[in-house]
């Protein structure tokens, strides 16, 4: 994986997170996305560029327009980073459950 930008850095920005939420339900053009923000159009373009570089967004040519939509695969990777932490606790709690079931039958 050799990306120009860190995905976690990309989603650390509130505007970029807002953009991701916006295009989650439907693919949109850069103009339509920008119209949802007070920020200057070039700023929004810069955010779109970063999100596209990290492959969180994908571009799609529709006639003369370019639509942006989410890349579900990449989004899943971010969701997965928490999984080892969850797994650590899940394993601990599974152990606790097993131990206490035996403890109960001993009593």
């Amino acid at each position, binding site marked *: 994986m050799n990306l120009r930008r860190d995905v*976690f850095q990309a*989603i650390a920005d*509130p505007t970029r*997170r807002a953009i991701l939420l916006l295009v989650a339900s439907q693919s949109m053009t850069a103009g339509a996305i920008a119209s949802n923000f007070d920020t200057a159009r070039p700023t929004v373009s810069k955010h779109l560029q970063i999100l596209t570089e990290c492959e969180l967004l994908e571009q799609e040519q529709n006639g003369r327009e370019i639509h942006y939509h989410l890349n579900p695969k990449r989004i899943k990777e971010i969701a997965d*980073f*928490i*999984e*080892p*932490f*969850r*797994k*650590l*606790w*899940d394993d*601990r*709690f*599974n*152990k*606790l*459950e097993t*131990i*206490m*079931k035996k*403890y*109960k039958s001993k009593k």
Partner: protein
Amino acid sequence: MEQKTTINAEDGKQELVITREFDLPLELLFTAYVEPEIVEQWMGTKVLKLESKKHGSYRFETTDAQGNVVFQANGVIHEFVPNRKITRTFEMENTPFGVQLEFLEFDKLTDDTSKLNMHIVYRSVALRDQLLKLPFAQGINMAHDRLQDIVSKLK
């Protein structure tokens, strides 16, 4: 399949919530947090001290096969209500993570099932994210170490 343990870590917040439903009566679940020899088993660490009472404190320590200390943690218990809740601090010693505040709430679901709600508050968002990524990073490191092992054997 529905996951028994869930983590809720909202973006930009310095806290997280771990929830788990147990196939155990509430009293047994709570006992697992109180009896030092049981805590040792499921936490995988030695319990040097565990005073389960208000203003009590606790200390955990893990050593490797050679007897080197690899993990040390301690904390103070602020609130202790049997079968209801434990409010405590937790701090890993000799790490940059600092102290965290933990609110543990135990609930009875049925006679044979119970639920734990663990609300952890960190000093900052950055620290929380760092700690969340720790097992992820360790996993990557382990995979990396294994890879190095394999590669060095190939040489």
